[in-house]
């Protein structure tokens, strides 16, 4: 089969690789119809996530048709159309039973790698380095789906792929970012990053009752989309602030209080004008820190006292200059986590069906799988108004 493989920093290639096989009783094999490039794939592309190997198949957002089932899979059959969560969850461990699916204790077959980096093993993900188990990804014609009786959501009505594909990751991720904010009537919510997850976080915050939502980014086209499609009421382009800071701009917007709830939908490769960026970028290049925590720093400093900071952007390791004093003294709550995708898939499918949210709003490009390298290039360089690239296998 053809698959998009990581071949080194800023190098991906669509190559011929063997077809996947059933390796466990609860596996199924999915023939992929649509897959997508995620913002978090760019961390792999840019070489910031450790433990990638040349030839690793990328991709964790995919859907398609079941073509083979392991003998313990009873709820799916050949021919079923499924969306596959990026998190791999066993369904029976204590974490899975508590619906904390992204904390699954059994889905990472090489736990010692992440245990060394973050103290405990991470859950298994598709196509996301050995930290998350070393599973082949879904930017391919076929994928093996372990624990297929837990994660995949069967799609039975006449939805298009584009309508339901993002249930695999970014829609539940944006939704969970907003849900973690415990939004109250009148809340002012600030969202760092107007990428696809940021847009879904904004739309979800509005759905959950936020009064105002401000989008923070450095690209005007993304900020315009945030207003036009995701319901943002205000925007801040941090590269056009004329001498003021994001924190001051947010105070200005909120009568000095600061946003009630702050969402970091940026993660480890944040940008900022000036010295802070240069400091973190240099340390990151020297491998002295894995992440550039600029967005989360700003979010904590900006958040009103007693407010909540929700971190959904991906971080990999250690950071410097973390404003712990601000966090502690001002009673700020931090909520975070990889998305417990299966918990959200069916309810969000309901919201899509009722027209409460339209996932297709984030799509800017639909390309054939063979053009995956072009898609990565466009996405990383923000060319041609790139927001979300869907690949057709």
């Amino acid at each position, binding site marked *: 089969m053809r698959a998009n493989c990581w071949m080194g920093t800023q190098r991906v290639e669509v190559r011929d690789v*063997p077809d996947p096989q059933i390796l*466990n009783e609860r596996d199924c094999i999915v023939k992929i119809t649509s897959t997508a490039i995620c913002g978090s794939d760019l961390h792999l592309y840019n070489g910031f996530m450790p433990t990638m190997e040349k*030839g690793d198949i990328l991709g964790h957002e995919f859907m398609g048709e079941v073509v083979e089932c392991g003998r313990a899979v009873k*709820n799916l059959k050949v021919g079923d159309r499924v969306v596959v969560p990026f998190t791999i969850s*066993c369904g029976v461990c204590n974490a899975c039973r508590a619906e904390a699916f992204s904390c699954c204790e*059994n889905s990472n*077959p090489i736990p*010692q790698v992440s245990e060394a980096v973050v103290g405990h093993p991470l859950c298994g993900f598709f196509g996301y380095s050995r930290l998350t188990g*070393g599973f082949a990804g879904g930017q391919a014609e076929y994928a093996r789906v372990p624990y297929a009786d837990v994660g995949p959501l069967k799609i039975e009505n006449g939805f298009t792929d584009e309508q339901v594909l993002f249930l695999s990751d970014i829609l539940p991720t944006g939704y969970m970012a907003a849900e973690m904010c415990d939004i109250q009537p009148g809340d002012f919510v600030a969202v760092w990053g107007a990428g696809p997850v940021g847009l879904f976080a904004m739309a979800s915050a509005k759905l959950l009752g936020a009064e105002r939502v401000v989008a923070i980014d450095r690209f005007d086209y993304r900020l315009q989309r945030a207003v036009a499609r995701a319901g943002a009421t205000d925007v801040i382009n941090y590269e056009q602030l004329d001498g003021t800071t994001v924190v001051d701009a947010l105070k200005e917007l909120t009568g000095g209080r600061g946003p009630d709830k702050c969402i970091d939908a940026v993660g480890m490769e944040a940008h900022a004008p000036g010295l802070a960026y240069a400091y973190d970028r240099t340390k990151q290049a020297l491998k002295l820190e894995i992440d550039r925590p600029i967005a989360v720093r700003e979010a904590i400093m900006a958040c009103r006292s007693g407010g909540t900071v929700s971190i959904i952007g991906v971080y990999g390791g250690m950071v410097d200059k973390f404003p712990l004093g601000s966090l502690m003294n001002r009673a700020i709550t931090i909520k975070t986590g990889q998305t417990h995708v299966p918990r959200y898939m069916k309810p969000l499918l309901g919201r899509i069906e009722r027209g409460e949210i339209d996932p297709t709003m984030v799509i800017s490009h639909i390309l054939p799988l063979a053009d995956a390298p072009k898609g990565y290039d466009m996405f990383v360089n923000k060319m041609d108004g790139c927001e979300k690239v869907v690949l057709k296998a």
Partner: protein
Amino acid sequence: MAAQRSDGERLAKALGWFSIGLGVAQLAAPRRMNRLIGVDPDGKSTATMRAIGVREIAAGVGLLSQPRPTQWAWGRVAGDAMDLVLVGDALNSDDNDRPRAATTLALLFGITALDVYCAQRLTNTRRAPMTTAVDAERQEGIRVRKSVTVNRPADEVYAFWRNLENLPRFMKNLESVQVTGGGRSHWRAKAPAGTSVEWDAEITDDRPNALIAWRSVEGAEVPNAGVVRFLQAPGGRGTEIHVDLRYDPPAGKLGALVAKLFGDEPGQQVDGDLRRFKQVLEVGEVLYSDASIASGLRPAHPPEGQAPQLYDREEAILAERSADTAATTSNRDRASSTPPGEPRPSSAMPRL
């Protein structure tokens, strides 16, 4: 044996402090130190004295920070040899105070003898044979302690482990365990190049649903002993499994083999084994990823040709687990009736 060990270790600690004290003096006052040992304090000898000071401090830290600093003790012996050569050279130079240098040389011989004694002590105790599980409490050798929580009741977890023939299902390098009767069993582990290592073991303590202890019988190539305890996890989270084992790695080729058997780092293999144990009991089988099915680095993409040989499945557990699976599926259906953001019923899943 225990006395011998504390002997070597106590000496190592004393030598560690001695190293640090000497090193600090050498770094702080290299010229005075040179005069003291009878060497003319010129620029070159001052630099040498400082370098030796750095080495002494490093050796001292090494001796003090390691529980059994065998390497560092031998490192000190090597340093002594170097110093003997330097001071011996000093004796041949007219610039130096020869009587003082001779006294220094004699002193150095004495320290070297002490260092050799200490290093040998540490090395010898490392090879002490393992006799009984109780003795193991005071034993040299390598000790590994790991634990995992399995979401199954203690009687089930105990029963699975107590049937020793199950162990190869999750212990990666174990080929087979044959119960031979009378509390005895025959163990066979994979070794590189298609060979294997075998030993006999006996159960020394067996308390149902609580504890199993074992040790290798006399004459084993790799003396080992261990105990696994089963404790009820708080909050109805199943059973905690605490493994405490010791093994005595022999030297040479067999030593390398044993290192592989127990993992590159002591404990790493046991850690992986316990996680597989959890998977077998909770899920019914060991999960594979594209990167985990082969040892060593390989791309995370499907393997060439036939799927690799897999472990036998636990049929009984699989059957039981399919009930869990059904519960999980219905779990998602139930979630649809509870929109995210609203409190979910806390007893969502029936406990088994």
